[in-house]
């Protein structure tokens, strides 16, 4: 998902990538997942620099949003509530067990646990899963691309069918059968995302539900949203029905109420946590405060691993970035070390798509530099007729600085660049909307949705991901032979050979210079003195696990 923090090499998550056509059924049996929650209750305050893009499980696709969704909307399967690599394990949630997968890898069977209720008392039904998947397509979710392999999904999306033929549900028994057009090595992981979390049919099918979010099926429910300023999460009074149904892997809430507020001043947030008026700040302290926080508050501050890539996208379908030489010139001109300093030294410099810790990552460097002379020479060769470009970034302080740096680099290369800085909470929806004018190039980032390299290619670089709205293929990349390779790899288990092929895919895209990647970010946890620092942990996929928050 787009937006925000974290990074650093995580020793291979490979072994945990238990995806693939061989994924077999059976009860997870709990496995002793770290029991989050169970705190003494109480109210806490959380701040974020940018409000979530949507408060809607099918639409939200930013880290800020997923951080909230993870503990509000429970899918059939979920990622274990545990820190580190353990958190990348898929376990049953609303479903009784992991899916039974047919021998050909195309049919998934699950059964919903009985007698569960949403926060408003509405029973959770098997057909609510179908409704959630339908919403993905009707509301133009950026996550819909992942679920296209479901039989009949494309026809439904195009309006040629009234329902998705590949999903059969029985509300009486709770049985859910999903048929895929091809085997899909990531499908377990996809069922564990909030995109696929059941919602009641009273939720608008084709509209953003942010003003009135659907009732919850997780430990917290959303009781107030005043986007983009504030929102409130409170304990879900009906969550016990989910627990009673046997969903032991879904963590309970450790506090009674979380008030989330948008605060554009990172420095004020740091001071707030220092003075205990803010209990947790989502964003890492800015470079100028980081050293002070590290030195003075080591008992409630730590660096956190994360798997992400920061990059500049370039619209490959319009001039001047439809010219390979222009895109290569940008890659030569960018200095990842300069950008590392903007992050206060929290960035691991890179020039490739897959981040360290992601299966398939193999370090390489196609554009050694920064080499401004080489960049200018390439640009002179390309001699683009159109040098008027718009550079996009958002208004979070570090993003703004990144945008200003990039603007300066492009100006030095001879472009007549205009910098557009827009609010962080609408940034990705704005640049993901094809009707927005002047989408030439700009800032972006990507945090893993699930520990499979396909997550860094399909939503970001596959031709099918060029969507009218909520798209994530900002470079509008469509290279049919690489799309085909991507599809072929997805059908296979993540063996060493497949990982090698993903590494080759990474290189093949960067030979086309579809992005100008520059770093992988390290995240932080900084809590107030009131909070139980040892209990709270950073989840590798969803940033901070809000169910782990507890007061001392």
């Amino acid at each position, binding site marked *: 998902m787009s937006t925000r923090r974290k990074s650093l090499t995580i020793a291979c998550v490979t072994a945990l990538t238990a995806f693939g056509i061989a994924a077999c059924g059976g009860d997870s049996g709990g496995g002793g997942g770290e029991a989050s929650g169970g705190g003494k209750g109480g109210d806490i305050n959380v701040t974020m620099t940018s409000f979530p893009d949507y408060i809607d499980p099918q639409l939200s696709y930013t880290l800020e949003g997923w951080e909230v969704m993870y503990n509000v909307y429970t899918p059939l399967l979920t990622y274990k509530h545990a820190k580190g690599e353990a958190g990348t394990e898929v376990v049953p949630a609303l479903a009784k067990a992991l899916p039974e997968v047919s021998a050909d890898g195309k049919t998934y069977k699950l059964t919903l646990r009985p007698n569960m209720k949403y926060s408003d008392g509405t029973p959770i039904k098997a057909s609510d899963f179908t409704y959630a998947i339908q919403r993905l397509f009707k509301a133009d979710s950026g996550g819909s691309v992942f679920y296209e392999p479901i039989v009949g999904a494309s026809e439904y999306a195009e309006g040629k069918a009234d329902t998705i033929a590949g999903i059969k549900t029985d509300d009486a028994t709770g049985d859910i059968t999903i048929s895929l057009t091809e085997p899909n090595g990531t499908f377990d992981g996809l069922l564990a995302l909030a995109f696929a979390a059941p919602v009641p049919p009273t939720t608008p099918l084709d509209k953003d539900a942010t003003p009135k979010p659907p009732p919850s099926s997780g430990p917290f429910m959303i009781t107030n949203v005043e986007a983009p300023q504030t929102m409130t999460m409170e304990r879900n009074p009906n969550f016990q029905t989910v627990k009673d149904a046997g969903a032991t892997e879904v963590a309970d809430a450790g506090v009674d109420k979380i008030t989330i507020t948008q605060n554009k*001043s990172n420095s004020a947030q740091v*001071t707030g946590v220092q003075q205990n008026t803010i209990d947790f700040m989502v964003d890492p302290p800015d470079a100028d405060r*980081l050293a002070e926080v590290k030195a003075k508050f080591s008992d409630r501050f730590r660096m956190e691993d994360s798997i992400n890539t920061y990059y500049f996208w370039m619209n490959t379908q319009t001039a001047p970035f439809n010219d390979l030489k222009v895109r290569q010139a940008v890659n030569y001109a960018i200095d990842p070390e*300069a950008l590392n300093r903007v*992050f206060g030294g929290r960035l691991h410099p890179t020039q490739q798509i897959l981040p360290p810790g992601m299966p398939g990552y193999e370090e390489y460097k196609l554009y050694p530099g920064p080499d401004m002379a080489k960049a200018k020479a390439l640009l002179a060769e390309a001699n683009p007729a159109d040098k008027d470009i718009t550079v996009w970034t958002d208004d979070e302080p570090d993003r703004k600085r990144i945008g*200003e740096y990039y603007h300066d680099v492009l100006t030095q290369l001879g472009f007549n660049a205009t*910098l557009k800085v827009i609010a962080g909470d609408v940034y990705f929806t704005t640049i993901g909307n094809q009707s927005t004018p002047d989408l030439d190039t700009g800032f972006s980032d990507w945090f893993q949705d699930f520990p499979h390299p396909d997550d860094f290619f399909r939503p970001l670089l596959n031709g099918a991901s060029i969507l009218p709205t909520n798209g994530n293929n900002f470079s509008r990349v469509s290279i049919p032979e690489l799309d085909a390779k991507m599809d072929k790899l997805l059908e296979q288990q993540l063996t060493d050979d497949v990982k090698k092929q993903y590494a080759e895919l990474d290189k093949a895209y960067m030979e086309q210079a579809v992005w100008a990647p520059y770093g992988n970010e390290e995240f932080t946890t900084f809590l107030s003195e009131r909070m139980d620092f040892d209990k709270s942990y950073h989840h590798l996929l969803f940033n901070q696990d809000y169910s782990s928050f507890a007061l001392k």
Partner: protein
Amino acid sequence: MGGLIGEVEAPGEPPLPVGVPAEELRGSSPWRLAWMRLRRDRMALAFGVLFVLIVLVCLAAPLWADHVAHTGPNQNHITDKVIRDGQETYVVAPDGTPLGPGLHGQFLLGADQNGRDVMVRLLYGGRTSIFIGVIAALVTTVFAVLVGLVCGYYRGWIDAVLSRALEVVWAFPVLLLGIALGTTLSLGGLKIGSLVVAGDSLWIPILIIGFVYVPYMARPIRGEILALREKEFVEAAVAQGKGPIRIMVSELLPNVASTIIVFFTLNIANNMLLESSLSFLGAGVRPPNASWGTMIADGYQTIYTAPHLTIVPGLMIVLTVLALNVFGDGLRDALDPRAKIRLEH
């Protein structure tokens, strides 16, 4: 020794300069009399000179950038090194800490987090802020005078319509209106017929600021014109067969000139403050361009570790606005000491 002031004062006219020999006053034009009064107001003159100095220093920004700092206002030097105390030092350290101020041509006021020379940005920022202040004041003045003259002269339905329109604008707090317009226009720019202004153009904050202050200047001018309209000299002009436009331009306008001049001066100061506020809130000057407002916005994020990044541009705004206000007050006293011209909002 001639008689002192007051001896040749005419009823209804501004008081004459104090302490000036009567023979010197005789035959002097109102402008000369005003200059005499202003000359004796040392405080106003000192601040007027200060404003001129600030303008001159800011105008010299390219000279400083090219010959002293050797860098432009938007040029990043994040990984560059400079010599400090005989040692090579990064402009921005690996942990992101920017270079502090020092007695060197380059980075005299240090660097910001993008490794840009703060002194160069301060000078260019001053140019931007003053340019916007002055041009927006001109925009306000042109429209306010036009509306004030037309409303005050024609009265009736024209006055009613235009006055209501002014009241609509007046009804919105200046800052809120500025933010609303600035945020909207910054994305798509301004397109009115063949007039197209890009979203990042300096003309966007100029037009916004110029527009929002029109009612504040137009209403008092209208009031004065309404009063002047009843005077005998206007009736005489009508009797002589002069047309409305001629009467407005040659009879009425000169009589409100002093008001306009004072308003114009005070308006520059207000415009600079509004520009800074809008830029601070992200609805004024577009990054990476520098203005004192954008510099404060950039600097306040680092106020704990590098307070000078906020304080220096803030101080420049205070000095410039103070200079303009004191000078404007002096000018008002010189042109018409009995006037109560004040730009309130």
